[in-house]
């Protein structure tokens, strides 16, 4: 066994990527508050450090030193585990996403990805399925009717839109001919898949917003009817963990959108002989753009109603996604 290549490099990559994601999730909370504030002609956080840049740190310290409340009649083990499952699942999703090409670092050939597996795309869907357990378990163990209702809604919404994610990805697989995310990025060497799959991209974007319970589809945590849904009984660091899981999920989902539809770390047209690390910068820039889109949508669009949203999923999105798939296949078959 080659210890450097098979053990140390993957381990270092894992630690670095996890820490970057953690930081990204923490700063996404700051970014969203800041940008939302500007949309609403406010300043947003501006006390902790210049531009409030230390706000996530202050929030973290506060969450750690809060009293830990475990309410009566909760299922203790599951109640404590649930936020951890949510957070870990979000992190693990990133394990198959390539964020750069192979580069020479410190005299070693290092691929800028954590894992490179043949079925990367299915891995994304599989871990998304696991992630819904964090929410279901939290809602069930809380011993609170709002939590349980929120968890049920979350589960129903997530499974409905996971289907649509899957179907819109089928069209991508059909074009790229592979389930490996690095090959899908390579396929977008000249043009991002957005150009070939505009409708598929829209379907995917709506579905991924819904799957991660983001506004305007944040129905499992509506404040005015479910008092934050599955998170009602959580406080202190456990609440913070759910919260940061949601924001890290935004970062990871943006990375997924960028990888599958926006060309990943590749340049859009035909410029190819740039420094490989420039690709990482481009990847980050694209992710930031999609994140801005997320906040923009949240600031602009009011929340939809749950029953309407489920009907929209099954009566409109699902048939539409199938039409997109078959139309794509027909174009590939006859052109």
């Amino acid at each position, binding site marked *: 066994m080659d210890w450097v290549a098979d053990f140390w490099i*993957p*381990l270092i*990559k*894992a630690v670095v*990527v*996890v820490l970057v994601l953690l930081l990204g999730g923490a700063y996404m909370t700051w970014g969203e508050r800041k940008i939302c504030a500007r949309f609403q002609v406010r300043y947003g956080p501006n006390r902790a450090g210049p531009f409030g840049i230390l706000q996530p740190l202050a929030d973290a310290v506060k969450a*750690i*030193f*809060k*009293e830990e409340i475990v*309410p009566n*009649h909760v299922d203790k083990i599951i109640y*404590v585990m649930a936020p*951890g*499952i949510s*957070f*870990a699942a979000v*992190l*693990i999703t990133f*394990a*198959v996403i390539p964020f750069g090409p192979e580069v020479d670092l410190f005299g070693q050939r290092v691929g800028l990805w*954590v*894992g490179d597996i043949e079925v990367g795309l299915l891995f994304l869907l599989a871990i998304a399925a696991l992630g819904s357990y964090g929410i279901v378990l939290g809602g*069930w163990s*809380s*011993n*609170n*009717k*709002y939590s*349980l209702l929120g968890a*049920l809604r979350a589960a*129903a919404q997530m*499974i*409905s839109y*996971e*289907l649509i994610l*899957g179907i819109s990805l*089928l*069209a991508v*697989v*059909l074009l790229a*001919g592979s*389930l490996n995310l690095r090959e899908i990025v390579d396929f977008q060497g000249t043009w991002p898949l957005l150009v070939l799959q505009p409708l598929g991209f829209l379907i995917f974007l709506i579905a991924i917003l819904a799957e991660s319970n983001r506004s305007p589809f944040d129905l499992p945590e509506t404040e005015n009817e479910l*008092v934050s849904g599955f998170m009602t*009984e959580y406080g*202190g*660091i*456990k609440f913070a*963990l759910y919260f940061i899981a949601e924001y890290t999920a935004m970062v990871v989902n943006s990375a997924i959108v960028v990888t599958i539809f926006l060309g990943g770390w590749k340049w859009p047209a035909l410029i190819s002989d740039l420094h490989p690390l420039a690709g990482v910068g481009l990847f980050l820039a694209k992710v930031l753009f999609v994140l801005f889109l997320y906040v923009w949508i949240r600031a602009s669009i009011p929340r939809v109603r*749950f029953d309407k949203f*489920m009907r929209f999923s*099954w*009566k409109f999105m*699902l048939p539409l996604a199938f039409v997109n*798939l*078959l139309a794509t*296949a*027909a174009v*590939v*078959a006859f052109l």
Partner: protein
Amino acid sequence: MPADYLPILFFAVVAVVLSAIAVLMPALFGPKRPTSVKLAPYESGKLPIGPARRRFSIQYYLYAVLFILFDVEIVFLFPWAVVFRDLAPRWLGLAEAAVFVLILLLGLAYVWKKGGLEWE
């Protein structure tokens, strides 16, 4: 190759350890002054009414069943999608998949007509 999954395993271990530390940390810090009101389930500041876990609409169950069936269908379609561009007569592959999809969409139409997609 199973070896391809080792980095993912490392990554998963790091992620799980980090989450576990975060979840278990408040046991060390923070005050512990529980009172009976603090530990009661939150119900908009009032005393909780009735059991917290009650039965829910059958609609959720129906959605879950629909989900399983379409999920299985998608799983069948993934290998088809991977190989589609290499199929010898592509129109044949298209026709086969179209029949496959349409049969299940027929089912969706049936549920739709029966009112199974309506929320009551």
